[in-house]
């Protein structure tokens, strides 16, 4: 089913007889695929407003991400939160839609400085589980009128409603970028270096650690980037190389899109922790290839795709430390016994279940979508 507009979508949902699998580009769904009838959002497409002078863009949820990004590029702007392309990692084809980005709260390396998708999102239109068309927020960035359902819908993976339109506050594209790198660091030294950089006034917009190398990105006006790179090198001490704009851009697109994991087998975890806990979490994983982003606060781990993919030890470790682990890729046999999403404490799980029951009383929207 591929409704042509919001009203048709409302009718489809109202008339649904069973579970629905909501599909934008099909590029970001994780976990076992739910068996529902496919509901495609691709026709809810088109940029309805773009005002560069107001840093505002509004688009149908089915608009291809590439179209949104191209339009913003024409205005010298971009989505600040750096959307990852995980098709290689997850083995998908298809074209990501902006609604899918919001539903997954997808964000890349720049999230540590610019915020996540939900931090740029200022308005949503959606259809709930009984077909009622609703809206929250709007097209202005300062908006505290009533409850913030914009944040609630972001990352809800379709389980509270099907997005039909989304509005963002965007930011300028910088003139240039550069990246500082240093090799041969162990996890503890890496976290320390990244913390020092992120705690400096030099506005680091990417801090990642892979294969013993720490990468720190600086973006902005040419003079500013030159100044800040030099100042950061001075702060951090000897041994740091500075990669120029072309190398920097390539490096960060590979970190963003998890290129080091692409084409390699295994289950893949996406782990969120307090950055200084990164070394301890790495130490609990066996036979893992890891890539750490967000100054250590985001750990990607590729582990053998067997048994529970080390879920019990990993999630127990996080229960003590704080944080959560999502199993973004695994075989069906692993998923059969291991939930993709991190089990929440009872109080939060109860609230989430109750919210889903309000927005989707029949439980038809992406029912295996979360939790």
């Amino acid at each position, binding site marked *: 089913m591929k409704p042509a507009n919001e009203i048709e979508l409302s009718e489809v949902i109202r008339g649904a007889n069973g579970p629905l699998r909501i599909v934008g580009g099909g590029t970001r769904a994780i976990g076992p695929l739910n068996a529902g009838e496919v509901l495609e959002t691709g026709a809810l497409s088109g940029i309805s407003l773009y005002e*560069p*002078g*107001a840093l505002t863009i509004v688009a149908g949820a089915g608009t291809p991400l590439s179209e949104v990004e191209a339009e913003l590029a024409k205005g*010298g702007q971009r989505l600040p939160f750096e959307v990852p392309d995980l098709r290689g990692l997850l083995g998908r084809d298809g074209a990501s839609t902006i609604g899918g980005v919001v539903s997954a*709260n997808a*964000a890349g390396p720049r999230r540590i400085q610019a*915020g*996540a998708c*939900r*931090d740029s999102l200022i308005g949503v239109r959606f259809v*709930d589980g009984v077909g009622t068309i*609703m*809206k*929250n927020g*709007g097209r*202005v*960035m*300062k*908006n*505290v*009128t*009533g*409850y*913030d*359902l914009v*944040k*609630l819908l972001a*990352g*809800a993976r379709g389980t*509270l409603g099907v997005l039909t339109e989304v509005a963002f506050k965007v*930011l*300028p*594209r910088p*003139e240039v970028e550069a990246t500082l790198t240093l090799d041969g660091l162990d996890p503890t030294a890496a976290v320390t270096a990244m*913390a020092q950089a*992120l705690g400096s*006034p030099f506005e680091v917009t990417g801090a990642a650690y892979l294969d013993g190398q720490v990468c720190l990105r600086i973006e902005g006006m040419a*003079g*500013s980037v030159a*100044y*800040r790179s030099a*100042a950061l090198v001075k702060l951090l001490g000897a041994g740091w190389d500075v990669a120029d704009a072309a190398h920097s851009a390539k490096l960060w697109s590979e970190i963003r899109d998890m290129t080091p994991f692409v084409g390699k087998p295994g289950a893949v975890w996406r782990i*969120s922790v*307090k*950055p*200084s806990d990164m070394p301890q979490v790495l130490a609990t994983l066996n036979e893992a290839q890891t890539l750490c982003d*967000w100054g250590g*606060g985001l750990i990607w781990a590729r582990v053998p795709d067997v048994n529970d993919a080390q879920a019990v030890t990993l999630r127990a470790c996080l229960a003590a430390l*704080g*944080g*959560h682990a999502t199993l973004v890729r695994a075989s069906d046999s692993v998923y059969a016994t291991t939930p993709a*999403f*991190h089990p*929440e404490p009872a109080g*939060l799980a109860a*609230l*989430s279940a109750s*919210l889903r029951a*309000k*927005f989707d009383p029949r439980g038809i929207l992406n029912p295996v979508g979360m939790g």
Partner: protein
Amino acid sequence: MEMPRIDATIVARKPAIVAALQEVLPPDAVIYDDIEVRAYECDALTAYRCPPLAAVLPRTTAEVSAVLRICHKMGVPVVPRGAGTSLAGGALPTGDCVILGVAKMNEVLETDYANRFIRVQSGRTNLSVTGAVESDGFFYAPDPSSQLACAIAGNIAMNSGGAHCLKYGVTTNNLLGVTLVQMDGTVLEIGGAHLDPAGLDLLGVICGSEGQLGVVTEATLRILPKPEGARPVLMGFDSNEVAGECVSDIIKAGILPVAIEFMDRPCIEATEAFAKAGYPMCEALLIVEVEGSKAEIDEQLALIIEIAKRHNPVELREAADEDQAKRIWLGRKSAFGAMGQINDYMCLDGTIPVSSLPYVLRRIGEMSKEYGLDVANVFHAGDGNMHPLILFDANKPGDLELCEAFGADVLKLCVEVGGCLTGEHGVGIEKRDLMKVQFAPEDMEAQLWVKDVFDPKWLLNPAKVFPLDVTASRRAG
């Protein structure tokens, strides 16, 4: 301002309610004397006052939980209170409610520079959060102008902004976690020092929920390294349109100033008479501030000035030093005080698309003549948040009502042009009855579902945010 009818059965049970609260709190934490409760009868929306049944000042999360459990069991509404600085009446009591004030909970619990967060009790003032970390080169970014007095609890309830929010976001963009006590006493930990939720973004809906979903007792806040420096430039223009275009061009050039403030002629004139900051007497004034090292500031300002010159400013003033920078800001920071010296005033808080500013100012000017009340406008030009200041005489019968009617018309206009009723102050009681202008019934129903889930008995701050007729059946229980 309509408020729910007081429940006489609750008032009749006051001795039993007070006695129950006294069992879980130290004596000085329960205020019930008729005179003493008047200290809590209003917040910064002083036109509306109502002493509560009682007020409590717990010191710990456990005490907050015990208080709420008692009130839940006895069916007593609770109105949470931070510092009572709300301009929207968010902490206005009813005569049958218990005010739960967090002012005694103001400690710093944990400071972590390596992971860039601070954990505080929610009664701590906004500015004192920065105060706790500034000697180590950090700050807490959301800075409402009441920051000397306002509490983090209130900031979270209203999702407060401030002058820095164009660059650094508002409270919800800087909040990492909370300890939330629900109305039945359940204590929840949501979020923490890690980023992003495991499931639904409950933290995101709690922020800005105006004390209706739970009482926040502790908060984990993002702290940021202090920029090396900041510097403003002042520009005067002979039309609002041109000022607006200049802002748009600055943004389109790829610069992100840390603040862009706009003042119109009535505001400039009143402010100059009061503060004598040496502002040009012109139609529209902009103050644009950028951050970074000296060299970076120079680089950004050079571009900003080049753009400004294309718009033929009547005045273009850079700050050569710290003193001159202070003088540039002096007028803007005195604006509200300047208006207050002329007369009583009502400060509105609508947001509009930035491109609508000239049209909205023109319409406000027309309404000013129709209503016979003067208006001065302050505007956060980067994010569209307007603060029209409507002058009235509180001693003149009918003037407050006239002023409120004028304000309501301005906020309806904000919604009409694609904006919203409130950009940072919150709905409280002040804009409650305008909610239907912005939200269709189904839009509001979805918000009510969230409260139904968190507070099924509708006891937490029940008379706020939503029109009373919309919430009547839920509040009746």
